[in-house]
């Protein structure tokens, strides 16, 4: 791919990368994505806001990671930058082997299309396309039809997610939970390096929420799918293998699987301390 080319072009920048192996790669660390010394500011000078302040973290391969934090903690910004949706002010970002900092808009778009999956809080689906059209959209945008292997994968996803009877329905004919399942199917269809889920249960009732979270957890447990989920819901975070806490643009804690009570307690303590 163009990963090598872009590295070469940017080689003279911050790090000398001409000798392979001088730096250990993201994969060797067992990471699906990582950021190094990441910062992001909006505006400049006194009125400027520092949304991220020197964040260094990796999302481990095959794990379901939750990124927790109160509003304004920088969790969404971190996710947007990691997913190649936004550019950082400083620092570096890798998705798999590819350093994405400095990629052009076109390169970034194609990278998202092929190697990142998205599940958003709401408005996940293209209203004019039916369920199948939405699931295969990343392939269609890439101008190719799914291979036999990929078709089998998509078929499996449609069955697992209980969408078989709905493939010809349009989004407006589906419930919120069903729409979210379609979004998950689309995100998993390309077997991306990383799936980013941004408050995927934010608009759902508790039953649909549990369903969606169980599906995400199963995707990572059974198929080794790396997933990063931004949330401020302790119950949602309790489904993850690992919980990262953000506060004021920094990582304040990095913990293994937590119960909802533990997550709540930690958030509350952080809130009181602030």
């Amino acid at each position: 791919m163009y990963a090598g080319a872009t590295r070469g072009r940017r080689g003279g920048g911050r790090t000398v990368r001409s000798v392979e192996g001088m730096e250990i790669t993201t994969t060797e660390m067992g990471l699906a994505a990582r950021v190094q010394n990441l910062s992001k500011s909006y505006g400049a000078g006194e009125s400027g806001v520092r949304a991220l302040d020197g964040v260094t973290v990796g999302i481990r391969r095959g794990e379901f990671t939750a990124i927790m934090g109160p509003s304004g903690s920088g969790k969404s910004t971190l996710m947007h930058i990691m997913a190649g949706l936004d550019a950082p002010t400083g620092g570096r970002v890798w998705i798999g082997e590819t350093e994405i900092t400095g990629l052009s808009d076109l390169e970034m778009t194609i990278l998202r299309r092929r190697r990142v999956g998205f599940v958003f809080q709401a408005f996940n689906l293209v209203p004019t396309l039916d369920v199948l059209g939405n699931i295969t959209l990343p392939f269609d945008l890439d101008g190719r039809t799914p291979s036999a292997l990929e078709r089998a994968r998509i078929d499996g996803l449609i069955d697992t997610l209980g969408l078989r009877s709905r493939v010809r329905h349009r989004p407006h004919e589906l419930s919120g939970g069903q729409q979210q399942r379609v979004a998950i199917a689309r995100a998993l269809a390309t077997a991306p390096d990383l799936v980013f889920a941004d408050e995927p249960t934010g608009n759902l009732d508790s039953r649909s929420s549990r369903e969606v979270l169980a599906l995400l957890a199963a995707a990572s447990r059974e198929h080794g799918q790396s997933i990063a989920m931004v949330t401020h819901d302790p119950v949602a975070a309790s489904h993850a293998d690992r919980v990262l806490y953000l506060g004021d643009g920094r990582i304040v804690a990095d913990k293994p699987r937590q119960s909802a009570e533990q997550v709540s307690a930690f958030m509350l303590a952080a809130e009181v301390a602030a």
Partner: protein
Amino acid sequence: MSAVAQAPQRAATDAADSPARTAPAGAWLRERGMGATVLVAGISTAFGVLLLSASGFISAWVGNDPYLGGGETLTLVLGILSVLLVGVAVYVAAIVTANTFSTIIAGRTRQIALMRLIGASARSQRRRVAQQGLAVGLIGAGLGLVLGTVAAAGLLLWANSALTIDVSYDVVQPVLLVPAVVVALTTWCGAWAGSRRVLTVTPLEAIAGSTPRTLDEVAGSRGRNAAALILFIIGGVLLALGVLAGLLNPLGVVIAFFGGILSFTGLTLGAVRIMPPILRLTGRLFGRSATARLAAENALRYPERSSRMAIGVVMGVTLVVMFAVANESVKVVLTRSAGGEPPAEMSQIMDTFAAIMMGLVAVSAVIAAVGLVNLLTIGVVQRRRELGLLRALGLTSAQVRRVILLEATHVTITALLTGLLLGVAYGWVAAQSLLGSVQVPPAWASPTLVAPAIPWGPVTVVVIATAVLTLIAAVVPTRLATRVTAVEALAE
């Protein structure tokens, strides 16, 4: 407008609309689509003013000239022609306005729902929209009146010197107010017709989490569809009768004329039923790529809007092509009846007349074009979140551009093909019903069957003009659409 009663309501609405727009009154004027409505009203008024001035000038010229004579008949003919031409332009303008307003309403749903939540009645909300339509119509008509009068004065000065004649004709006439008033009123009606959806907005839609309705019901009341069908059938029968009568007498063209008006009105009235299948057919031409499918589905997302938009362009194309084909077919028959030699002078006069008529009906096409640009632009503005989602999922800016261009092409190609077909048909009926009884050599026997002669020059011009229109229509929406970033759009 009862400004006092409206003021608090308006202030609340504006605040709900956008915190940046805090100007108390008239802020809605800057809403996307209002400018286009002013433009459309202005063009049709100016067109009416210019036509009235031109025919008044010609009548004055001919009436003063002792050699030309026959001033009264000419005045009458010019008057009828002007009314018909302005009528078509105003009709297209009204369609465009209704469309623009229904599109604006679709984008205002949240705001209207909020007003309903606070306690405004649906009818008062709709009245407010119609009042905005009247205000915009008055502004446009006023501008059109002034600019049209100034342009007319300039043109008449030029005509006097170019034709080396001296006709004293006072440009400023009370009659010029007629097109202005008519346009202001039709804009009002158009806004009223386009604001029907206001009545269906429920207060619940103001509450977060309600997903916007994305597919309009293919509306069109049963009564309207029935009326359209009846008009179309009667018109078709009259067209056929006109052709048959034309085999015996040139007056067949009169029957065919009314058949044409009725059948075309039927087509326009039933556009919401007729256009979507044709639009769907055009969509297939684009192939199965993601961009083509997105574009095709977008063009059909609001079938009513797209149909009305397409029918405006169809009208323009049909009328232009009709005059071209009728003119050419008549020339063919005259040439044959003259024994193969084209009567040069006659041919010259006919070409000039046809060219003038084509130019005049093309104004309607321009108005329809404004509407198309507007439709595409508002469509993009209202689709920001969807575009943001698509960008996140991997739609490149080049693909965004292609989607928008294909969307414009979708409507214009459909309108072009439909218009060409209808234009050839109507043009042929006109020529056949007029000249079916002319005897031509070698047999010198009537009835004569006229083959539809298609003049490739004008048709090429129409095709190129449509292509240019497509490109122009895509410029603004493309610029807006490529500026959408995933992060911003998804945060909304």
